[in-house]
């Protein structure tokens, strides 16, 4: 449960698929235009999935579905990619390993 003042992430549908009139490829035409933003919860309490209002970092009020409380980033330096160390080995050999 989230309470008023918690930093949360919300989600909303800006345009439903059938409301999208821009020139779009067929696959995108089938999708809703979705939006995410973050802010301080304005409702007294809320559960994930509730329609809520937040006050964003600039002080805007925005409505949406509560999807995350205390949102954080999980992007990283990725999993091991063996080709990268192969590039390193090759470059050092070409540059400093003689004229092979």
């Amino acid at each position, binding site marked *: 449960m989230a309470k008023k003042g918690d930093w949360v992430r919300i989600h909303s549908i800006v*345009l439903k698929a059938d409301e*999208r009139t821009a020139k*779009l*490829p067929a*696959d*995108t035409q089938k999708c809703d235009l979705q939006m*995410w933003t973050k802010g301080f919860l304005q409702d007294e309490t809320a559960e994930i999935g509730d329609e809520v209002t937040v006050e964003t970092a600039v002080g805007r009020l925005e409505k949406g579905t509560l999807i995350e409380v205390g949102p954080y980033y999980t992007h990283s330096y990725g999993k091991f*990619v063996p080709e990268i160390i*192969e590039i390193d080995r090759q470059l*050092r050999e070409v540059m400093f390993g003689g004229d092979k």
Partner: protein
Amino acid sequence: MALAKDYKSVMGRSNDIMKEALGLDYTEFESGSVAFDYDALMKATNYTLDEINKIQSRTGVGDTPLLELRNLTALSRKYAKPGYGARILVKDEAANASGSFKDRRAACAVAHAKKLGYKGVMAATSGNYGAAVASQAAMQGLKCIIVQECYDSKGVGQPEIVEKARKCEALGAEVIQLTVGPELFYTFLSVLEDTGYFNASLYSPFGIAGVETLGYEIAMECREKYGKDPEMVVCTTAGGGMITGTGRGLLKAGCTNTQVVAASIDLTGLHMASDVQFNKKSCTTGHTGFGVPYATDPDHSDVPRSAARPLRYMDRYVTTTQGEVMYITEALANLEGLERGPAGNTALAAAFSLAQELPEDAILVVSETEYTGAGKHIQPQLDFARENGIEIRFGDPVDDKPGTNIILPANPGLIKCKDADLNHFRKSLIKKAVKKAGVEPTQADLEFLAEETKTDVEFVKKALEEL
């Protein structure tokens, strides 16, 4: 009475919203025909190069190091004929306040917003520009909203774009994230209207004038260190602001013989507004998906007339592959001790091969580097590609198929940029511009189109005959 905020109503008020949000009336520059007064648009900033330099130096922007890449030069010479292989230099734009050359664009726009009394600034961008605007807004005490095209319909985002969202938030901005599609512009306009913020567009004259210092610095530093102008400057090209501003700056410094080359990653075949293909690309900028449409139709941006007009300044347009750019990024780290973000190295990959066409005493400058970090690095980008079913292997980059594979060059000698057909792009611009205006071009229009394409009236006439 509250204004209607549905799609049609907001888009219908686009011109008025823009006028309020830019403090600039673009109708003043229109001729009513094909031509518009580009010089007047650029002069409308009312800032001289010297004033822009002062604004930038107050905010940690500009005067970045010009580094000679001695090992990469030596490596490139191994694959050149005797006596060939230009000295490769790079402008280390990662040293700007927020980590990219985009600070130059943001500095001027945000300072101008502050001067005009706006309470906040907004920008629509998934790239480094968001961080740049957020950083400048933080320094100027203005609020900032960045609107990003970030996810596919399943909510999956490229690690590179997600990192840029994080950075914007770290610098105090609100980030509005959207799924794929050009209707981003509707959300952007709607929030712009509600907040009354300044539109710190990438394509406003303030943004472009800010990049002129980059070209100017390159010229001055080359003269100081090497006693001559650079033979060639290579610019990573997406929306065209980098090459336009750098080209203008070089000309302002009097570099009339420097060849200005645009370089983009070839993503031919991938549709930029496709939900499925959105995450099939493994780089999110510096590619032909932006480079070509913005070169041939600069005015489809978020301002009525774009100040970025790349074909005016471009002598050549080359393409590289994702694999070549990833490889050269690793080479920059391993051989030069410079770990930088991949997208900015598009021009470096091209430069590595272009240098081999020039004699050893020639100077070739790559106009930028960008910051690197989690997500914005070749390992997460290659890992993400592999997770999305993209084949990654060593081989010959000529076998590269965007969205299907990433071919890492089996040896550095296989890094070979390809020449795109610049005259084809020029003709395309001419035809699109005339079609859009829907009028018979006047003599002034023909001259305008010659300037737009760095050609002459004869070339324009011939292109129009093909219509």
